[in-house]
């Protein structure tokens, strides 16, 4: 294909996918008035007022001053996503190894059941779960939320990492074992390092899924445990929708996952090609 055509096509695709994000980015530096004027214009006087409102936690609207818990929400998002992924890795990686290496009675059924958590409509599970959580005091706690977040992160990590373990020749582990090492040290020193790109990819994906989750926290958490996805609802105020703040909130909440994705990109590429493992 002619290089010029390629450049044009790639630019078009880039614009198509990046346009909403660019638009939101621009909105975050505008006031509600400039955002809502008709016709919309790319020329405006940038303002940091949206960001200062979010960071200071005070939103001044026509109807008065509104307290915002946005920074708390951002922190909640981080705690919930990070802890959920960490717990899922702790449980899911050894489980994935077991499913990949050992054929035990019912292993396929158990693996499939774990995957099937992803089939169930979340609301159907959440309403009864909410009642139970209220009874046992897990309602509106980090622990309760992290537990429920396992429905998102655990199956993902389990199934992705299992594939990576299956791609590692068992004989590499066997070679390490005949060299005089225990099963556990083989798992830690050989299997995990070789599957690390895959584990990183799975962890990143499940972090993003957890970060973007909305409905679990909407039902099970109150304001001080809510992540940004739910917290953004606060911008729908009595005096109208605060588009500027929503845009700034979106930008701020994209940043951590974006940074993580950029950092882990090389693992992702390595993980998806997996050239190092196949002899």
């Amino acid at each position, binding site marked *: 294909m002619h290089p010029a055509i390629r450049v044009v096509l790639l630019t078009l695709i880039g614009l198509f996918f990046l346009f909403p994000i660019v638009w939101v980015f621009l909105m975050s530096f505008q006031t509600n008035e400039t955002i809502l004027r008709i016709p919309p214009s790319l020329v405006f006087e940038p303002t940091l007022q949206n960001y200062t409102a979010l960071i200071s936690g005070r939103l001044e609207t026509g109807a008065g001053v509104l307290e915002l818990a946005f920074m708390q929400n951002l922190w909640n998002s981080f705690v919930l996503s990070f802890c959920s992924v960490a717990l899922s890795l702790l449980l899911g990686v050894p489980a994935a190894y077991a499913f990949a290496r050992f054929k035990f009675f019912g292993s396929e059924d158990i693996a499939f059941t774990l995957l099937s958590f992803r089939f169930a409509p979340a609301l159907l599970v959440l309403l009864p779960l909410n009642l139970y959580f209220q009874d046992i005091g897990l309602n509106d706690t980090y622990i309760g939320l992290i537990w429920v977040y396992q429905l998102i992160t655990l199956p993902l990590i389990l199934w992705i990492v299992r594939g990576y373990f299956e791609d590692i*020749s*068992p004989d590499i582990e*066997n*070679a390490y*074992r*005949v*060299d005089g090492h225990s099963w556990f040290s083989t798992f830690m020193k050989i299997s995990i390092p070789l599957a690390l790109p895959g584990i990183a990819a799975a962890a990143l994906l499940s972090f993003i899924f957890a970060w973007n989750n909305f409905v679990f926290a909407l039902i099970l958490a109150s304001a001080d445990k809510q992540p940004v996805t739910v917290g953004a609802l606060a911008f729908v105020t009595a005096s109208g929708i605060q588009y500027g703040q929503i845009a700034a909130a979106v930008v701020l909440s994209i940043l951590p996952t974006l940074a993580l994705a950029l950092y882990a990109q090389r693992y992702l590429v390595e993980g998806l090609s997996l050239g190092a493992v196949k*002899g």
Partner: protein
Amino acid sequence: MATLTLDRVSKIYGHGGKDALKAVNDVNMAIDDGEIIGLLGSSGCGKTSTLRMIAGFEGVTEGDVKIGDRVVNRLSPAQRNVAMAFEGYALYPPLTIRDNIAFGFSRDRLKKAEVDARVKRIADLLEINDILERYPPTISGGQQQRASLARALVRNADLYLLDEPMGQLEPRLRAILRARIKEWIIERRLTTIIVTHDQTEALALCDRIAVMEAGVLLQLATPHELKDRPANLFVASFIGEPPMNVFKARVERDGGVARLIAGDEAGHDAFGIELPLSGAGHALGNRHEVHLGIRPHLVAIGGGGALRGQVVSNQWLGDQSHIGIDLGGATLIAVTDGALDVPAGSEAPLTLPLESIHLFDAESGVALMHGLEPAAPGVRAAA
């Protein structure tokens, strides 16, 4: 170094249901200290399963595996002190070839100079000096195989298990390394088991060879014995290149003589030879059918041959001739050391020397006679 004993060892895959597969069936082996044993057989015959049970990667379903005086059935691979070279190389991708080789004795806490010296010695032997600083994915299959072999041979273990150790090497290098590896093993009196499907390799390297088929150990014997006194028809036709000529034959008794009438593939009479019953009677028993076998190298062409055949092909292979001969409808392959001037279509006299023929039971394939001697020593004593 140590002895290895397999005592009625079986491996059954599956849970004993109807899909259970008996991969290794009641195998007995007693291997001496410092002996080199070949496990030979076609794919799926159970040789690799046997090796993996010895190494400890597979559980033993029945029987005992003993290294020295220790029953190792329940020991982990780490506790058995065996070294193994894997068919799939199984090198550690993040380590250089040097570190891969040195890894095997990382637990021995040797000085760095000693480690380097050992690695250099084995790398010289296997000609992998120039790739010691490379990583496994960047070198060829043959080089990876040599690295994997080096990693196993360099260790101090009781037992060395080599699974198809030279399958990926080019023939010339294979021949050179075979000799060097044999010298290395003998010098150090390493008890070694080599799994291979290449009988040239097994014959060249091993003190004794175990021929396996369908999970059963058919014969464990020296290369000479396997050639001269195969225990059954399978071993007879498996060992030797080109394979043994085998014909179905009818037994007719006539006074002091047993006449064996060999048939062609359709079952029509092709040719006959006579055996003195005095020697053959006990081994033959009252059988009416046997399998008659003779090694291609031992068919004598020319002279006052008792049989006359028609030459159908004559291939000169540079050091020997393979001659295809039609004997009354049955095809026989003869091998001669020199070139022989018998063009296709010509008539050739030939002899099947009685001391070179083998007789096998028609149904079980068990050897009855080798030459004029009964196959089972006990039978001869009775005679």
